[in-house]
């Protein structure tokens, strides 16, 4: 199976103007629906909904507390390497950018892991650029085994892989994968990814599905908002998530809502996605898929992250450094080798204190690993 044909059907029937066809009445109906349809989801993201944001917020907030409680799972990314063979025009790791390239040795991975674990975090997202020859499956497998000493949950945000490769990583202890489609607009995608393996739109689009098949416990998708028309990308992200939830009910599906951030390259985003737009998408998604996980990264600033908490957020990153080796060695971040600039540079303790002051419980551990070897003999 693949989301591709379904996406094409939606994309064809989706000239941008259609979002303007919705009325406030359509939006009201969508808000009051027990189970929102695709049409309702569109209405909730249409310009007509912008005057009804408060009503959407009430429902989004109620649904979130009902399904997730007043809890937010915390994780942090660990950049293992910034070596990349791709030319994504919007990314600081783009292989044409002249930044210092490095990858962590297993000893360094262990040291980074220990430094992060000391902050209390128990859920780690490991990232690399796209350089399978250097930081391929063998390397990720070895890193995971090292990191599982410190973390009950290790997820990956790396290049798109085959189902067998995902299955290998699941066996090694990886329990989640994040894959951003960047933009669902296939033509624009080709422009933004002029060269390199990531150019293969379809292979990337189907990667989350391959990960579901391979037995990943959590699969997180997203579009980088601002690359193309945000409404269109947001809609297709939601539909992609719905497709995965429907076909892989045993997998926890989550959606990230990253917005473009300043970076080392000189490319500027096509659209500015305002705070209002972002909030509308977040709430529309919550109303459309009440049980989907929603992740907000430190690309967003502290104040905004706190304000949108009740509207549907279930996961957040904290204590983030996007530089390779930036956790154990604090000076390594200074060379500006990070993938993008973060907006919320607070420590884990500070994020936790802020969550608690707003009546939310930070959740550090949300999975008990079930490796065969651990279970044996018990």
């Amino acid at each position: 199976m693949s989301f591709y044909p379904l996406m094409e059907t939606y994309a064809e029937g989706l000239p941008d103007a259609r979002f303007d066809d919705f009325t406030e009445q359509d939006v009201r109906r969508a808000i009051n629906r027990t189970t929102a349809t695709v049409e309702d989801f569109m209405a909730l993201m249409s310009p007509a909904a912008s005057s009804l944001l408060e009503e959407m917020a009430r429902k989004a907030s109620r649904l979130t507390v009902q399904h997730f409680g007043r809890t937010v799972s915390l994780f942090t990314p660990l950049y293992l390497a910034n070596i990349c063979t791709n030319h994504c025009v919007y990314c600081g790791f783009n292989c044409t950018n002249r930044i210092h390239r490095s990858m962590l040795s297993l000893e360094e991975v262990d040291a980074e892991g220990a430094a992060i674990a000391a902050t209390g975090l128990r859920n780690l997202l490991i990232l690399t650029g796209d350089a399978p020859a250097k930081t391929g499956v063998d390397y990720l497998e070895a890193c995971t085994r090292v990191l599982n000493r410190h973390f009950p949950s290790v997820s990956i945000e790396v290049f798109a892989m085959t189902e067998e490769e995902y299955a290998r990583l699941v066996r090694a202890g990886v329990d989640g994968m994040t894959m951003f489609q960047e933009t669902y607009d296939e033509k624009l995608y080709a422009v933004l990814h002029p060269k390199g393996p990531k150019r293969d739109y379809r292979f990337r689009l189907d990667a989350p599905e391959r990960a579901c098949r391979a037995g990943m416990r959590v699969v997180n998708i997203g579009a980088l908002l601002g690359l193309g028309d945000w409404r269109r990308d947001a809609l297709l992200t939601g539909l992609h998530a719905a497709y995965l939830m429907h076909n892989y009910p045993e997998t926890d599906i989550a959606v990230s809502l990253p917005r473009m951030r300043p970076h080392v390259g000189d490319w500027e985003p096509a659209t500015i996605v305002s705070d209002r737009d972002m909030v509308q998408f977040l709430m529309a998604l919550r109303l459309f898929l009440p049980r989907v996980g929603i992740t907000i990264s430190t690309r967003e600033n502290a104040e905004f992250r706190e304000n949108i908490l009740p509207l549907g957020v279930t996961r957040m990153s904290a204590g983030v450094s996007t530089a390779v080796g930036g956790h154990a060695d604090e000076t390594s971040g200074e060379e500006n080798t990070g993938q993008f600039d973060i907006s919320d540079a607070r420590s884990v303790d500070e994020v936790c204190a802020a969550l608690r002051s707003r009546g939310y419980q930070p959740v550090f551990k949300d999975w008990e690993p079930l490796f065969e070897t651990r279970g044996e003999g018990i």
Partner: protein
Amino acid sequence: MSKDTFEIGGRTLTSRLFTGTGKYGDDGVIPEVCEASGSEVITVALRRVDLESATGNVMDFIPEHMQLLPNTSGARDADEAVRIARLARAMGCGDWIKIEVISDNRYLLPDGYETVRATEILANEGFTVLPYVNADLYVAKALVDAGAAAVMPLGAPIGTNRGLKTREMVRILIEEIDLPIVVDAGIGRPSEACEAMEMGADAVLVNTAIATASDPVMMARAFGRAVRAGREAYLSGPGAKRVLADASSPLTGFLGGAA
């Protein structure tokens, strides 16, 4: 009323309200919730327990006297549930285990077949097994054979607060199954918990409705009282255990002689 106790796994329980530990904005409220509710059994998701954590652990907030009921939340099949149960025991969480096998993250409905399988394995290993299932008579019968210590049918899907949608099916389980019936999931209001008890359920488990209330402690107290009220109603009335209650004086007495 003071002698109205019931037994699960050799432990005598006075309170018929089981509580949970998930979804609280602050775990620090758990001791007060336990006290206000009067509950003696508390469920905790093993996936969230972190004994190595330096930053606090839900277990630190559970009062000593509570019967711990670790659950296998996150298990997608019987094998995972079995492994979680064994881990729970190895971590010192005791022998009670609530089996939750859910391979459907959209609706969170329990998989009856895998639940029976896990129950059989764990009961044989000496666990006190409380399986969470759909209100299905055949699954419940299979659980009895598999060695379950109680049966926990859902009132409505987890976290929906929709109440006793499975009323008629739960009623049948109460009538037919010779194990404690604990209505689990879906109960959103004290009145619904009260109704389950009036029907003759042995206990109810309430987590979301208490944890997500604006004032969880007050809501816990309300649930404690509602459960007691429902139980008293059940004990004092003709009871719902038999739908066809015996008439208090024979309706055919006027015919004279043996009917």
